[in-house]
């Protein structure tokens, strides 16, 4: 039964492998995400955060429990989700523009329309590139771009088809601190504009607090939700916000919870 929340994860457990070698990655995890909400999932490495991503998108099926997205139970890969990983996974044989237009070639109704209306789609893609500061770079190949630029293009590809659900698995993890913080603002700008439901998996607590409406802390494996907090800081948040006491307090509280969990 759906609950009215957009994403609903109920008592989900995930076991990888069989018999002696099986690993309990996620145990009895429950999470509710509202439509248009941006949540962050944080926790120590190896706590099953990435498993959570795969569970929600249906790339991996839960061993126990139920997951709903929209009002559909997730049993197979769900369609039209935007995804971005730490590794930009752009296709080296496509230009940046052609890369970010990939979802148009797969997701309906764009797949049907793009043949007739290519110019409009190209314009849309170019406009999105401009939003993230890549106006001149559509014709360049991914390997001609810096790591930060590739990750910008990766974000574009994840959101261009206006997905209802965007899954981000440490997309800023491999970037230097300056680029990372700049991309937080880019990400926030895109989210404010498009208001998709976002799930960000990260181990950077400042990143989680900056971007999310709510932050969930997951325990070390097997992963369970052990703490949840709402970030009531108005948007748009700026880098200045991250130095304000209330922001710092939130990050401290999160850090405290995680270190408690690790020392037990």
């Amino acid at each position: 039964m759906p609950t009215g929340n957009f994403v609903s994860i109920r008592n989900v457990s995930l076991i990888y492998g069989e018999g002696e070698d099986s690993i309990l990655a996620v145990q009895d995890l429950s999470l509710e995400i509202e439509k248009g909400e941006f949540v962050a999932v944080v926790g120590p490495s190896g706590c099953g955060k990435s498993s959570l991503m795969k569970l929600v998108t249906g790339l991996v099926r839960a061993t126990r429990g139920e997951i709903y997205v929209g009002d559909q139970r997730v049993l197979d890969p769900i369609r039209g989700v935007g995804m971005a990983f730490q590794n930009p996974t752009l296709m080296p044989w496509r230009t940046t523009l052609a890369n970010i237009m990939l979802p148009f070639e797969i997701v309906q109704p764009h797949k049907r329309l793009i043949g007739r209306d290519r110019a409009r789609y190209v314009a849309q893609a170019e406009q999105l590139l401009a939003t993230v500061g890549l106006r001149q770079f559509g014709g360049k190949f991914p390997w001609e771009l810096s790591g930060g630029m590739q990750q910008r293009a990766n974000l574009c590809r994840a959101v261009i088809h206006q997905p209802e659900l965007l899954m981000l698995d440490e997309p800023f993890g491999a970037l230097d601190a300056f680029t990372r913080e700049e991309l937080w603002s880019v990400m926030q700008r895109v989210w404010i504009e498009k208001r998709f439901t976002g799930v960000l998996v990260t181990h950077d607590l400042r990143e989680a607090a900056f971007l999310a409406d709510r932050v969930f802390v997951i325990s070390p494996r097997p992963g369970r939700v052990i703490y949840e907090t709402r970030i009531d800081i108005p948007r748009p948040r700026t880098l200045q916000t991250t130095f304000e006491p209330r922001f710092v307090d939130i990050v401290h509280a999160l850090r405290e919870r995680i270190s408690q969990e690790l020392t037990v």
Partner: protein
Amino acid sequence: MTNARRLQIAIPWLVGVGLFAVWELACRVFEIPPFVLPRPSAVFATMYDYRGPLLEHSLHTLFTTIIGFVLAVAGGTAIGLAVGASSFVYVGLYPVLIAFNSIPKVALVPVIVIWFGIGTIPAVITACSIAFFPIAVNIATGLATIEPEMRDVLRSLGANRWEILTKVGLPRSTPYLFASLKIAITLSFIGSVISETVASNIGIGYLMLSASSRFEVPLVFAGLIIVGAMGIGMYAVCVVFERRMTRWAFRSQDLIS
């Protein structure tokens, strides 16, 4: 053009000429009899004298080789895609492929002759059968090494298997394909010449066999050099195609030049 670049173009020719010079010198200094190892000057003289038959037979060999090669590309690509795309096909077919590839193709020629008679057809089949294996293996490798994240991105967009194959699998395996073509074209020459040597009345392999039975050793060497030269030529054609089709895979070289 810089001096370094000029040198890079000249070096293969210099090495070739140097090799012939050493060969010529060795034959003269050690007084090797021409029916054991003819001097290159004698070989080239023979090549000129027999230019008519040599041209006819080598063009025929080139023709059969290219047909065999093209068939191998088609067949090898199809098998490689099947093996790379499905683990069932992989498990089922791979041992058979390896077994077939382990058979010396020269042992296969008599059987093919029983089926199709002597001449062009066995040469084409032998060339094809020896060349398809590296193509199939490389295509399968290209498909098998797709980054899982890339696959996940496409699957979560709703792509089906066919779309994943055409949008990621095929472009991803083109560099592997072209790398294998360079091996396959030289193997094709081996295949067709072997078959012509064993069972044919036309082609450079046949010409060499009949020349050696008449102890015309310089003519045999002329044939060998021509086969080698055709191999280099076709290899170069493959390289040109490779550079055109998979420029993205050679980005480092492009950035330098």
